[in-house]
C-alpha cells in the first residue's frame, strides 16, 4: 500500500509535472461514461450542468440529443443553445455542431453529447471528439457523454461480446486525457425494465438489432468492461497524484512490449491487444515491422495496410518502427534486445500453411530464438469484412522475368551442346550454373529458382546418359544433379539477398540524398523566393507530388511558390491551410482536420512559431503516406522552416543595418548643414557689421572689397541651399525629370555663361563636336551637373590653369567631360568622392562647398540612365570628370514644313 504522505527527499516526476503544466490554459473535459445507451448519461450531464449554472458559470449547449424524452428536455429548457450549422450532403440537410459560433461565443462550459459521433463531410473535423479537442484548446470546459463500446482499444472485446463491430470509434487518449470521468451505472435488470417501459431511445429500423443487443449477458459483460475501465482510470490517477507529489509507491518495473506487425489483416487487432496489455502494465510499447525482400513484392493494398497498422499504433500511443531485414524472427529478436524489450506479442499464424511448411513458422522460430524475452502468442480476431485478405498479385513485370530466365537456360543449353566436344561431361553443368547465377542477379529469387529447375531438367534430358530421357543411368550422376540443384538454389538465394540489400541501401541513400540536396540548395539560395523554389522543387521530386508553399502576409496565408508553378487553391483548401498554420498541426487529406480536400498541409514550425505551411497533393488520391515517408517529409519541412526563418532574419538584419546607416547620414547631414550654413554667414555678418559701424574709416577700395566678400559668400550660401534641396529631393525620390530634346552644346553654353565670373581666372577651352545627336534630358538638372563640375574644377585648380570642356559621341552614347589641372584625386578615392559629404583630404585646405555636389551630380546623372566617373588625365596632374548619356533609340523626325 502506498504511503499517503509526500517524502521530502523525493522529487516529483518530471513527466507528471509536465502534464500538469500542459493542463494550464486548456479547458477541462468531463466525460459521462456509460456501458450502453439508455443508462442516463445525457440526463446526468444535464443535471451536472444545471448545478454549475446555479453556481454562476456561463453554460451553453452545443449538442444534446434528448431523443424526445421529456425529463431530459425539461433540464434543457433554460439553457442557452447555440444554433447548429446546416450542412448539405448527398442531397440531404444535416445539422452539425457549429464550432466557429461556439469559439466566437467563448462560454465557460459547453455540453456536447455523443463524443464518438462522426461529422458530416464538409465539417472542419471528421469526428466530434476532434471538435471537442479544439474547444478544449480554446480554454472552454466541456461535458460530454460516450459509451464504452466506442473506445478504440476495446473495439475487439466489444465485438466479441456483442457480435457486432462498432464502427464509430474514439481513441483512448481522449478518455485518458479527460480531467474527470463519471461512470453512469445502471444494473442490467433496471436497464431492461426501462427498455420495457419505453424510456430508452430505440430507432425504428434497429428494433431487432436492439433486442439482440440488450440481452442480459451482453449488458453484464459491457457493464463489467465499463467498471473495469473506470477502475483502471482511478488507479492511474492515484499513481499520477503520487508521482506529482513525490510519494513513493510500487512503480512498475520498466517493462517494454513489442508487437510484430505484418501485412496480415489481423495485425491491427494485435496492435490493439498490445496496447491494452501495455496499458494495464503501465509499460511502454512499440510496433515493429520487419521489411523483408518480400515487402517489395506485396500488393499495394497490403503495403498500405502495413502503413495503416503502424499509424494505428502511433495513434494508440505506441511507437512505430520499421527495420530492414531478411529473417523476421532473427531481426526482430535482435532489435528487441537492443531496445530492452521484455515481451513480444505475435499473432498465431502469420503465414499461410504452405509457406509455413516451406519456410517454417515464424512463431516457432521466434520462440526458439527469444532468449529471455517473453513471447506472447495471441489468437487473432478477424477484422471483419471490410478488410478482405488479398494474395499478392504477380506483377506484370515478374512474368516477363521468368520468361527471360527460361530463355537464358536455353542459351546455356545451346552453349553447352557446342562445348560438349571440348569439355569433360561434369564440367558442362557449370554453363548452366552461369545461367542460374545470371538469372538470380538480374531478375531475383523466383526466376532463378525456375532457372535452377529448368537447368536441371535440360541438363538431365540433353546431357545426362541416357540422353533424351529424364532418367539417370549412372547413380553418380544423380549426386551431381542433386548437388547442382542445391548449389543453384543457394547461389540464387545469396544473389537475391545481396541484390535486395543493395536495393534497400540505394533506397535509403536516395532519402538521405534528398535531404542533403535540399539543405545544399537552401544554403545556396539567396532570397526568400529562391529558398521557396528550392524547397517546393525538392519536395516535389522526392515525394512525387505537387507542392505549394504558403507564407503569412499581414495575417493571411499567401501562396508564394509552387511546383509545378501557377497552382491555384480554392477557398476551402486555403481554409485548411490556414487552420494548419494557426494550430501548428497538419490538416487536410489524410488528417483529422478538414480531410475532404485534395491537399495535405504541413505547418512549418520553428522555435519562433509557425513560419508557413507546405501543401502536398499526390498523383493518386488514395496514396497513404508511410510513416517513413512521413518522417522524411517532416525532416524536409523542418529544414524548410529553418531556411525561411533564416531569410526573414537576414532581412531584419539588413533593415537594422539600413536604419543605422540612415541615422549616420542624418547625423552627418546635421553637422554639415550647421557648419556650411554658418560659415558664409560669418563673412557676411562680419563684413556688413564692419561697414555699418566703421563706414567712415574705409576707403573706396576697402569698402568694395568687403561688399564683394558679402556678395560672394551670399552666393555661396545660395549654392549650398540649392544643393541641399536637390539632395533632399533625390533622397525622397521627389525628383521629376522634365525630359525634352536638348543639345548638349546648349547646356554647356548656358552653364558657362552662368559661371563667367567663377571661371574668370582660368583658361577655358571648349571643344564641342558638331552635329551631336540630341538627347532627351532635363535641361535644368543636367545644367546643374555641369555647373557643379565646372565650379569644382575652378575650386580645385590654381588660377591661370586650363579648364577643358569637351563633348563628343562615343559609340551609342554622348560623353562630355570637364578636365582641370588641379590637385587631382587619389586613385583609391575616385569612387568615394561621389559619396555624400565626402571631401578629398588634402591638409587643411578644404576649399569651399559641401561634400554634396558630386553626389547630387551622380544622382541626377544616374536618374537619367547615364554614368559619371572620375579619372586622371593621360598626361600631367588634375582630374577628369566624364559624364555619358546613352543615345535615344529613335531620334525625332524632322519634317520640313
Amino acid at each position, binding site marked *: 500500500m502506498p504511503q499517503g504522505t509526500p517524502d521530502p527527499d523525493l522529487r516529483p516526476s518530471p513527466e507528471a509535472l509536465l502534464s500538469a503544466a500542459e493542463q494550464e490554459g486548456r479547458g477541462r473535459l468531463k466525460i459521462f461514461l456509460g456501458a450502453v445507451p439508455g443508462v442516463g448519461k445525457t440526463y446526468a450531464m444535464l443535471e451536472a450542468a444545471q448545478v454549475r449554472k446555479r453556481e454562476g458559470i456561463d453554460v451553453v449547449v452545443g449538442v444534446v440529443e434528448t431523443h424526445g424524452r421529456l425529463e431530459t428536455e425539461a433540464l434543457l429548457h433554460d439553457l442557452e443553445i447555440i444554433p447548429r450549422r446546416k450542412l448539405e450532403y448527398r442531397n440531404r440537410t444535416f445539422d452539425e455542431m457549429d464550432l466557429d459560433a461556439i469559439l466566437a461565443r467563448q462560454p465557460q462550459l459547453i455540453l456536447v453529447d455523443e463524443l464518438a459521433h462522426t461529422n458530416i463531410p464538409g465539417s472542419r473535423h471528421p469526428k466530434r471528439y476532434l471538435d471537442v479537442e479544439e474547444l478544449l484548446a480554446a480554454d472552454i470546459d466541456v461535458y460530454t457523454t460516450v459509451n464504452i463500446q466506442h473506445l478504440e482499444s476495446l473495439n475487439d472485446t466489444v465485438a466479441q461480446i456483442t457480435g457486432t463491430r462498432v464502427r464509430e470509434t474514439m481513441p483512448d487518449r481522449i478518455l485518458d486525457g479527460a480531467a474527470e470521468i463519471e461512470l453512469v451505472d445502471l444494473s442490467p435488470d433496471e436497464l431492461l425494465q426501462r427498455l420495457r417501459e419505453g424510456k430508452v431511445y430505440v430507432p425504428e429500423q434497429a428494433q431487432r438489432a436492439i433486442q439482440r443487443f440488450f440481452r442480459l449477458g451482453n449488458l453484464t459483460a459491457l457493464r463489467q468492461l465499463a467498471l473495469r475501465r473506470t477502475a483502471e482510470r482511478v488507479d492511474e490517477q492515484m499513481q499520477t497524484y503520487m508521482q506529482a507529489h513525490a510519494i513513493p509507491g510500487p512503480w512498475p518495473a520498466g517493462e517494454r512490449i513489442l508487437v510484430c506487425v505484418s501485412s496480415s489483416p489481423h495485425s491491427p487487432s494485435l496492435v490493439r491487444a498490445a496496447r491494452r496489455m501495455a496499458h494495464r502494465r503501465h509499460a511502454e510499447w512499440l510496433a515493429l515491422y520487419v521489411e523483408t525482400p518480400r515487402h517489395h513484392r506485396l500488393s499495394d493494398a497490403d503495403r498500405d495496410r502495413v502503413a495503416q497498422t503502424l499509424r494505428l499504433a502511433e495513434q494508440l500511443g505506441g511507437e512505430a518502427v520499421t527495420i530492414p531485414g531478411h529473417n523476421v524472427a532473427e531481426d526482430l529478436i535482435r532489435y528487441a534486445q537492443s531496445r530492452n524489450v521484455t515481451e513480444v506479442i505475435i499473432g498465431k499464424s502469420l503465414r499461410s500453411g504452405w509457406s509455413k511448411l516451406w519456410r517454417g513458422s515464424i512463431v516457432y522460430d521466434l520462440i526458439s530464438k527469444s532468449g529471455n524475452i517473453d513471447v506472447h502468442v495471441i489468437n487473432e480476431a478477424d477484422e471483419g469484412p471490410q478488410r478482405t485478405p488479398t494474395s499478392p498479385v504477380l506483377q506484370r513485370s515478374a512474368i516477363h522475368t521468368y520468361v527471360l530466365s527460361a530463355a537464358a537456360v536455353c542459351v546455356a543449353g545451346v552453349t553447352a551442346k557446342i562445348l560438349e566436344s571440348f569439355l569433360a561431361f561434369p564440367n558442362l553443368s557449370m554453363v548452366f550454373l552461369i545461367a542460374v547465377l545470371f538469372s538470380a542477379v538480374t531478375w531475383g529469387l523466383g526466376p532463378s529458382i525456375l532457372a535452377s529447375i529448368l537447368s536441371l531438367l535440360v541438363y538431365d534430358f540433353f546431357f545426362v546418359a541416357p540422353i533424351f530421357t529424364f532418367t539417370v543411368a549412372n547413380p553418380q550422376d544423380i549426386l551431381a544433379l542433386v548437388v547442382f540443384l542445391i548449389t543453384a538454389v543457394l547461389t540464387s538465394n545469396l544473389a537475391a539477398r545481396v541484390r535486395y540489400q543493395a536495393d534497400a541501401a540505394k533506397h535509403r541513400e536516395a532519402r538521405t540524398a534528398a535531404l542533403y540536396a535540399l539543405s545544399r540548395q537552401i544554403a545556396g539560395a539567396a532570397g526568400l523566393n529562391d529558398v521557396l523554389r528550392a524547397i517546393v522543387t525538392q519536395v516535389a521530386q522526392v515525394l512525387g507530388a505537387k507542392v505549394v508553399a504558403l507564407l503569412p502576409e499581414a495575417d493571411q496565408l499567401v501562396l508564394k511558390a509552387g511546383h509545378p508553378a501557377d497552382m491555384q487553391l480554392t477557398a476551402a483548401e486555403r481554409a485548411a491551410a490556414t487552420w494548419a498554420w494557426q494550430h501548428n498541426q497538419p490538416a487536410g487529406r489524410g488528417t483529422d482536420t478538414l480531410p475532404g480536400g485534395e491537399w495535405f498541409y504541413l505547418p512549418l514550425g520553428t522555435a519562433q512559431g509557425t513560419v508557413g505551411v507546405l501543401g502536398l497533393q499526390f498523383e493518386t488520391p488514395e496514396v497513404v503516406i508511410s510513416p517513413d515517408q512521413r518522417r522524411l517529409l517532416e525532416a524536409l519541412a523542418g529544414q524548410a522552416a529553418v531556411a525561411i526563418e533564416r531569410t526573414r532574419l537576414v532581412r531584419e538584419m539588413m533593415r537594422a543595418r539600413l536604419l543605422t546607416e540612415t541615422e549616420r547620414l542624418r547625423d552627418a547631414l546635421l553637422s554639415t548643414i550647421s557648419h556650411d550654413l554658418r560659415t558664409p554667414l560669418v563673412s557676411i555678418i562680419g563684413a556688413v557689421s564692419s561697414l555699418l559701424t566703421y563706414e567712415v574709416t574705409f576707403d573706396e577700395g576697402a569698402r568694395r572689397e568687403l561688399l564683394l566678400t558679402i556678395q560672394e559668400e551670399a552666393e555661396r550660401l545660395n549654392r549650398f541651399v540649392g544643393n541641399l534641396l536637390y539632395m533632399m529631393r533625390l533622397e525622397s525620390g521627389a525628383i521629376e525629370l522634365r525630359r525634352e530634346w536638348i543639345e548638349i552644346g546648349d547646356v554647356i553654353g*548656358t552653364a558657362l555663361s552662368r559661371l563667367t565670373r567663377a571661371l574668370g581666372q582660368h583658361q577655358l577651352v571648349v571643344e564641342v563636336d558638331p552635329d551631336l545627336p540630341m538627347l532627351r534630358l532635363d535641361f535644368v538638372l543636367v545644367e546643374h551637373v555641369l555647373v557643379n563640375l565646372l565650379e569644382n574644377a575652378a575650386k580645385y585648380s590654381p588660377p591661370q590653369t586650363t579648364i577643358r570642356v569637351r563633348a563628343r559621341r562615343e559609340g551609342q552614347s554622348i560623353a562630355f567631360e570637364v578636365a582641370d589641372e588641379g590637385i587631382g584625386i587619389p586613385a583609391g578615392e575616385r569612387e568615394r568622392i561621389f559619396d555624400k559629404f565626402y571631401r578629398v583630404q588634402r591638409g587643411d585646405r578644404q576649399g569651399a562647398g559641401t561634400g554634396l555636389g558630386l553626389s547630387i551630380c551622380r544622382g541626377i546623372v544616374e536618374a537619367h540612365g547615364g554614368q559619371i566617373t572620375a579619372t586622371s588625365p593621360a598626361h600631367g596632374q588634375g582630374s577628369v570628370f566624364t559624364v555619358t548619356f546613352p543615345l535615344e533609340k529613335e531620334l525625332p523626325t*524632322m519634317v520640313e514644313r
Partner: protein
Amino acid sequence: MTTSSIRVLVVDDEPQIRRFLRTSLSAHDYRVIEATCGREAITLTATERPELVLLDLGLPDIDGLEVIDRLREWSTVPIIVVSVRGQETEKIEALDHGADDYVTKPFGMGELLARMRAALRHRLQAELDEPVFHAAGLTVDLGKRIVTVDSHEVKLTPKEYDLLRILVTHAGKVITHQHLLREVWGPGSLHETHYLRVYIGQLRQKLEPDPAQPRYILTEPGVGYRLRMEDEG
C-alpha cells in the same frame, strides 16, 4: 531711354525684400509703390496705374497666377514675376497666363533692371517706332528684313528669320518654347521642341561669333529663349 519716375508696383509679402527693392529702384529713379498681397496688388494697379508690376508668386492670399489673370482682364501692364529656382513649370505657366518675364530668386539688381528695361521698352518702342534692332555686332532691320553681323549680311531661311523676328520684337524678354513653336510652326506643333533646338542651333551657327558660347541668343533653361539686349551685364 530715360526712366523718369516710372511707376513700379512691387508686390511681395516679405518686408525685407520690399525694403531693398524700394531703396535700389528709387536710386534708379523709379517710383516704387508697395503691395503686400494679391488683393492689394489688384486694387493698387487699378488705382495707381503703375507702368510695371513686380509680382512675387508666393503670395499668402491669392495664387500669383490668379493675380495675373485678373490683371490681364483689363490691363496690359507689363508684369515681371519673381519665382524660385527649380520651378520651371511655374515660370512657364506665369508667362502663359500673360506675364512678360521672370527673375529667379535670389537675383542681382543688374539682372532685374535689365528685365525691367526690356519689359518697358515695348511701350517706349511703340512711341519711337523703330524698325531696326541693334545689339553688339548684330543688326536686324525688321522693315527691310535684312540681318547683318559685324557688317556682313547673313542669309536666313524663312523659318530662321521668323524665329529671329519674334526674338527681336521681344528683345530682352524671355519667350517660351511653346510661344515660339506656335508662332513659327503653328498651334499643332507645340510638342516639337526638337525643331526649335535645331533651328536655334542653325541661327547660332550663322549669327554667333562662338556658337558654343552664344552672346545674342540665350537659353533660358527649361523655359525658352531670350535675345540679349545691348545693355545687359
